[in-house]
């Protein structure tokens, strides 16, 4: 990769990490409030599932949450690999892409499981 393309890629990665962080800030807030309200309200697991099953708004919200994680986490992970473990650029990015893919698959699978629970 040329030096210029490299710089452009790094600038883009920073930009996407920024944008995903904004999305995550909102998602984490909504997620925490929902969790606390649900738990304090005394809802059982079955009652929670009955609300999430077939609920497209719920599925869309958590799909966005998972997507934002899959964008945000790998970029930070690559930086940790470079700076703390002194890995090379290539292996750091490989690790990051692997972790991103894993997060995406596991996350979306979890969303699907709760969306389609029991069905």
């Amino acid at each position, binding site marked *: 990769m040329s030096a*210029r393309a*490299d*710089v*452009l890629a*790094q*600038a*883009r*990665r*920073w*930009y996407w990490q*920024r944008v995903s962080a904004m999305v995550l800030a909102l998602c984490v807030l909504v997620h925490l409030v929902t969790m606390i309200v649900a738990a304090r309200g005394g809802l059982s697991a079955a009652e929670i599932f009955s609300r999430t099953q077939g609920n497209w708004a719920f599925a869309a919200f958590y799909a966005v949450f998972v997507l934002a994680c899959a964008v945000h986490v790998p970029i930070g992970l690559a*930086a940790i690999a*470079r*700076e*703390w473990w002194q890995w090379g*650029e290539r292996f750091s990015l490989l690790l990051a892409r692997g972790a991103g893919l894993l997060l995406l698959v596991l996350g979306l699978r979890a969303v699907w499981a709760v969306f389609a629970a029991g069905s």
Partner: protein
Amino acid sequence: MNSVSNAHLNVRIWRGSAADADGRFVDYAVPRQDSQTVLDVVTHVQRVLDPTLSYRYACRVGMCGSCAMSVNGRARWTCRTHVAKVLGADGVLEIAPLANLPVVKDLATDMRGFFDKWAQAQGHFQGAQSRHDDFARVQPETPQRKAADAGIECIGCAVCYASCDVVQWRPQFLGPAAMNRAWTLVNDVRDTAQLERLRAVAGDAGCHSCHTQGSCTEQCPKGLAPTLAIAGLKRTVARAAVKGKL
């Protein structure tokens, strides 16, 4: 203030050269004086106790940026650092060369890498006018002029560079001072090398690796905010990248 009442300071100074693998701290007893600075202490050791001690200083009034050292684990300008303010409860003053720079000998570090990075960050002014043109008129109230003003007083002491974790983790990282300088030029409306400069400060060796921890801003003896300058560079580079100009 038990240190003030003591007649002597317990001083530990790093001794050793780049070629010398067994660098170590050596203890000295230095007479305590009122309003004594750390540089006064080092100068006493060199002039009275051990003339082989190497260190660097010039102006002694916080203008030249040459006397920075690590004092009790923190990078500081020693000429303006009073002993009373940095002495720990154990009464020991530990003085070492600046971190993140190779040691030439004792307290003198090799600053070449630090200043080479200023050049890499395109830290020089590139204008389009000659001496035959009239003076450029830059209004003091404009946001660009204010942003340039905020970072212009850097004395190049490398305290920020020695305090930066990212410099330690990524040896290629340009560091806070070089990017602070670049930011003042990004805001110089007369400068004509803007795109080259943005390319020079973008990427892993530049602003995008900064974690915004703020050690540089906390430690800067001139009260500058390189963290803010780097954040400005990130925004400007991102804007250029989105527009496809980078």
